[in-house]
């Protein structure tokens, strides 16, 4: 069953246009002019239950707008969205029991109170039974290692600690879909790993569907099987992360170390990146030159070491963004 279904979803904003100068300021007072901005244009796709989808795109592409339409916060201008069989806007309250969201740039915790107070409040807002709440809290406390700061006011927590609490707050009611909008923004590597592990476990053990936007290539690579790239409000790419990684740039990077001094020449499809007498690094465009051929063309007795790499995910994403 599809957990999330979008059908021609669009959102248009009206933005007041203001010319420069005093004259135009008065003009806009008397007769304001509006410009329509199409943040999301006719987007259709669906996400299966239990899937982990990376929903990526450059800044201002329409990612957050889409998430906010799927969670019932924003009303679509046209088109349909269906989340767990609900219309997010009409059935916002019913849907809210079934979904959780973490917006990396906003907080849902009471700033001056300890996270435990916010959790307790959420448990009554979501009408979670006491025993269930305690079980759930114990589990999240353990998974996210919250123990030591559950009683400290949120304003005294570090960003990493706070975000871990944000996750706990969004997961207390056992949502079936988790919407994550740049959840790892600004976090250190260790916390990032902790969060990724948590997401993986929830997906595996509870079958939680994950809808993730992130500018962190690591999040996408580590968590998601499928990626949708949205740009200027439309779907630009919809493919598996694997395929994206292996096929999108059609590029391999080969690093070599030699036994004796060697000079390599560039050939068609092979571009040198770095070359010293005892080492070389070059990229192979696999559409033009098959990687096997290129390797076979090397003097195998002279090679001390060889590494063949995919281009990093970050580069792939950058290539997709700039191509469109």
């Amino acid at each position: 069953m599809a957990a999330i279904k979008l059908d021609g979803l669009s959102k248009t904003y009206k933005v007041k246009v203001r010319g420069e100068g005093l004259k135009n300021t008065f003009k806009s007072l008397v007769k304001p002019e509006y410009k329509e901005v199409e943040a999301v244009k006719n987007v259709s796709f669906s996400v299966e239950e239990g899937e982990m989808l990376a929903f990526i795109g450059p800044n201002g592409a329409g990612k957050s707008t889409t998430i906010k339409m799927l969670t019932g916060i924003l009303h679509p201008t046209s088109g349909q969205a269906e989340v767990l069989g609900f219309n997010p806007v009409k059935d916002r309250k019913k849907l809210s029991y079934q979904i959780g969201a973490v917006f990396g740039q906003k907080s849902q915790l009471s700033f001056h109170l300890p996270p435990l107070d916010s959790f307790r409040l959420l448990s009554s807002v979501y009408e979670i039974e006491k025993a269930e709440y305690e079980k759930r809290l114990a589990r999240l406390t353990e998974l996210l290692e919250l123990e030591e700061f559950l009683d400290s006011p949120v304003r005294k927590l570090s960003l990493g600690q706070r975000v871990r609490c944000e996750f706990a707050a969004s997961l207390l009611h056992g949502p079936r879909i988790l919407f994550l909008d740049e959840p790892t923004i600004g976090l250190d590597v260790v916390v990032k790993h902790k969060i990724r592990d948590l997401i993986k476990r929830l997906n595996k053990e509870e079958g939680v569907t994950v809808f993730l936007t992130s500018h962190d290539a690591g999040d996408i690579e580590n968590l998601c099987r499928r990626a949708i790239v949205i740009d200027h409000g439309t779907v630009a790419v919809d493919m598996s992360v694997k395929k994206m990684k292996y096929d999108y740039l059609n590029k391999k990077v080969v690093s070599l170390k030699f036994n004796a001094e060697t000079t390599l020449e560039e050939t068609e499809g092979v571009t040198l990146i770095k070359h010293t007498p005892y080492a070389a690094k070059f990229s192979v465009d696999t559409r033009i030159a098959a990687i096997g051929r290129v390797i076979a063309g090397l003097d195998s007795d002279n090679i001390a070491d060889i590494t063949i790499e995919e281009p990093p995910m970050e580069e792939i994403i950058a290539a997709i963004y700039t191509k469109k």
Partner: protein
Amino acid sequence: MGKYLSLAGISVKNALVYRANVTGRIIFYFVFIFVFFSLWRMVYSGNEIAGYNLTQMVWYVCMTELVLFCSGAGIFGVMNHEVKSGAIAYELLRPWNYIYKQFAGTLGNMTFSASVFTLMAIVLGMIFVGPLPGFNAAAIPFIIVSFMLSITMNFFFLMSLGLLAFYFEENSPFYFIYQKLLFVFGMLIPIEFLPLWAQGILRYLPFSLITWGPAKMVVDFSFGYAIQIIPLQVIWCIAAVSLAHFVFSRGVRKLNVHGG
């Protein structure tokens, strides 16, 4: 219902965290009452004005100020900020009614303010002019009901004005106009100071019912008056809550949240 009670509970906790800024408001309240006391002492030459003597007049101002100090006037700013900054996004994700959630979330603060400023009002009234002559303890239940209606009505009107942020880039003029109307139509002077025809209109309008309504009940109680004022307050209270609902449910469709 349970969730709204928990919200109110949390808001009491929050109110206690913010207790530092209560000191500032206490000083402010004192200054207000002191200025009005000085003003009315100059104005009065021993007689009554429009049926109020000096003692009643000072108690009257203590009471109208009390309403405003307990009304959670911050709600206008909160609404304004939530809509404009997009902080409302998280609020809309929860299984609650946003309007009642905000009310419940302010109750703690209101209760806290009510206890502090009621005490202030009584202490200052006693110091400046002494006890109210002819104050009847039987009036207290009516007074409490009237104050609660006033504060609730004022809260939901302020909330509606704050929610106008959905429609207007700059909604604070509405707030200023509203505050000034409260000020001139009941807070500063009882409506009896105005010509009869104006009184006839004002006694049915929310501005006077928020301030003049409960304050007159304290300084010049009669059952007839209470029975006339309280139903009007109930009607305006319902109107205020409905208005907040209307502004919210229409406005939320226009919500734009950019970035993040």
